[in-house]
């Protein structure tokens, strides 16, 4: 399975995401922000970082990069897309996911191994986990506070679109401890913590993040994409 990883100007974690795809058993395909061609990939990861220096708003300019036209179109058609951190911000700016991410309520950048609880396994990127499973993955953000109006939050919770919550400590003031959400079809996932940094024991943060990447490979098997 071919999983594209987009590099925007200012992306930081594209190389780690590429490696995570490979460790999980997929074929990573580097995608360049300035090109409209998705090179026949079956899924796309929008990695973490500071695309366009976080100018204007985080993810606001990356959303209009040439590569995003087809990402948005194919995401609406069911292609799995995972936005991590800055990628989550891009997905919200592109209106593929509801809500927005604002500056951490305590105003400090936070970098830590974060405990999460998986609250939905019915998505393209979380099927490898057990419902209610607690995992630890690194978290590092300055603008990771998830916000949406109350009606949207109620709908997300009611429809099972909250896929992960912070456990023990809410590190950025996110509404209802939300760490990650998906769209109503479950193929588009936004996640503030960084599973791609927790796929090999050598790196010291465990391997709990690997499930996101093995999930999408399984998902491809289920829907007949190889």
């Amino acid at each position, binding site marked *: 399975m071919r999983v594209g990883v987009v590099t925007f100007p200012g992306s930081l974690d594209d190389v780690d995401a590429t490696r995570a795809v490979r460790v999980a058993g997929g074929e990573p395909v580097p995608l360049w922000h300035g090109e409209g061609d998705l090179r026949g990939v079956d899924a796309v990861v929008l990695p973490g970082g500071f695309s366009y220096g976080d100018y*204007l*708003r985080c993810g*606001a300019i990356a959303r*209009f990069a040439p590569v995003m036209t087809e990402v948005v179109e194919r995401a609406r058609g069911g292609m799995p897309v995972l936005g991590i951190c800055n990628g989550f911000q891009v997905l*919200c*700016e592109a209106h593929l996911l*509801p*809500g*927005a991410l*604002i*500056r*951490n*309520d*305590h*105003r400090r950048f936070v970098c830590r191994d974060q405990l999460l609880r998986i609250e939905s396994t019915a998505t393209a990127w979380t099927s490898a986990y057990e419902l209610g499973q607690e995992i630890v993955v690194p978290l590092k953000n300055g603008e990771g*506070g998830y*916000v*949406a109006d109350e009606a949207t939050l109620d709908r997300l919770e009611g429809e099972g679109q909250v896929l992960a919550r912070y456990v023990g400590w809410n590190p950025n*003031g996110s509404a209802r401890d939300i760490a990650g959400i998906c769209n109503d079809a479950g193929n588009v996932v936004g996640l503030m913590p960084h599973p791609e940094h927790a796929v090999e024991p050598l790196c010291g943060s465990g391997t709990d993040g690997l499930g996101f990447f093995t999930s999408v490979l399984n998902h491809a098997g289920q829907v007949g994409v190889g």
Partner: protein
Amino acid sequence: MATYTVNPAAVRRTTELIDSRQYVLDSDWGKVQPRADAQNAYLEKHSWEEYAACRTALIACVYRASEWRHKDIEIAAHDLLQHLDQVTGWRGAPLARLRSVSSEMGAGMARVVVDVMLKPEILDPQGKAVHGALPRLGFEGVTDVRQGKRFELELDGDATPERLERVRALAETLLSNPVIEDFSVRVDNERQR
């Protein structure tokens, strides 16, 4: 010990010399010529060396006078340098002059201002940080601070209702995120002639 003072007669004479070249420029090219053309014309009529030498002398004078703390001489030389550059159309000629030329030629230029603010119900940590700093600086009586963004859009013509509608679409699409922000659009009347 030597003394240094500004010689008013010399300043006047230098100004006249610069102005006399202005006369050459104007009579040949008129006021509405773009600056680059005017400068090229000047350089065609006067050798590059002649112009550069005059400029270099003034720059040297500014530096030297500044270095030796002869403030009045530094300022006089600085003013002459600005005058020379303005007359010869060197880059940095006041924008106001360009604008007035442009409006004389009938081309309207409007500035449209877009203000973007976080919606009232959205937490504004930056505003809170600013607010928190006020008492430390001795500013009393401010109960809250909200931080926003201001965009100034220069249009190449008048701010017609159609163009303002386009600006609104732009504000809604890119300049603001309607999920968390409100925006307002207005024409900066001081700039629209």
